């Protein structure tokens, strides 16, 4: 192989499952369930060769809501819905369930941040009837 050709590390996105109702009534309380594929390596385990396995955790999750129909002349302001700080005691493929009141149609922005520069953002839209 020519030395000028290098295989760049491909940053595979982790698979996520976001469960959220497609529509809701104004003022309704909805449940949001999120799951992301991640080993959540604690940093307390050893490999079969005896070497410590480096810590690799998702440290933070946050959910923001961006209303679609913002009042005229005001930029759509995102509001904090829920956030979580996760530690080694959270099981692999972290699952979270939380609730929120829906007042308008919009998009939920889910963000996961972790060790080794892990960062992923997913969107989930909801329509208020």
């Amino acid at each position, binding site marked *: 192989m020519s030395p000028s050709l290098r295989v760049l590390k491909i940053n595979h996105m982790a698979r996520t499952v976001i469960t959220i109702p497609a529509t809701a009534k104004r003022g309704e309380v909805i449940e949001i369930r999120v799951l992301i594929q991640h080993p959540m390596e*604690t940093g307390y385990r050893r490999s079969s060769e005896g070497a410590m396995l480096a810590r690799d955790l998702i440290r933070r999750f946050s959910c923001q809501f961006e209303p679609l129909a913002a009042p005229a002349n005001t930029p759509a302001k995102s509001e904090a819905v829920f956030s*979580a700080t996760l530690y080694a005691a959270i099981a692999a493929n972290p699952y979270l369930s939380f609730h*929120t009141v829906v007042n308008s149609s919009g998009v939920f922005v889910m963000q996961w941040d972790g060790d080794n520069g892990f960062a992923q953002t997913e969107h989930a839209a909801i329509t208020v009837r």
Partner: protein
Amino acid sequence: MTMTATRRQFLAAGTAITAGVLVRPATLLAQDDALASLVKAYAGSATPREGRVKLNVAPLVDNGNSVPIEVVVDSPMTATEHVVGIAVFNEKNPQHDVALFVLGPNAGRARVATRIRLATTQKLVAVAKMNDGSCWTHTVEVIVTLAACIED
């Protein structure tokens, strides 16, 4: 004469100490020191009290690698009265922190759920912080038959 006085003083002091020990709140005695100090650190200036929060977890856990837990707080979740945060701590994992959750008045329902690891049979505590600054706790004892692996 002096002998009697000393003896009386000694007895009085003994009684006072015994009374002091007996009067200590049962919650303080029941809770492990490590857990209590973590709860105190999270509560800040507030005095954590038992009640209003419920930590739902199976009392007997087959697999410590993934244990579903749910924290429900008795709160109307209005702008004037709501939960601002929930913390979960464990007693005997290598690290005491499990998770911190931040909620707002718009949460509608103070209920969060996740899945955790448990290294051994131990106590878990959930702490809910209200917008008025008060803190409420619930401690649960969990028996784990297959522990989450610490070594491989």
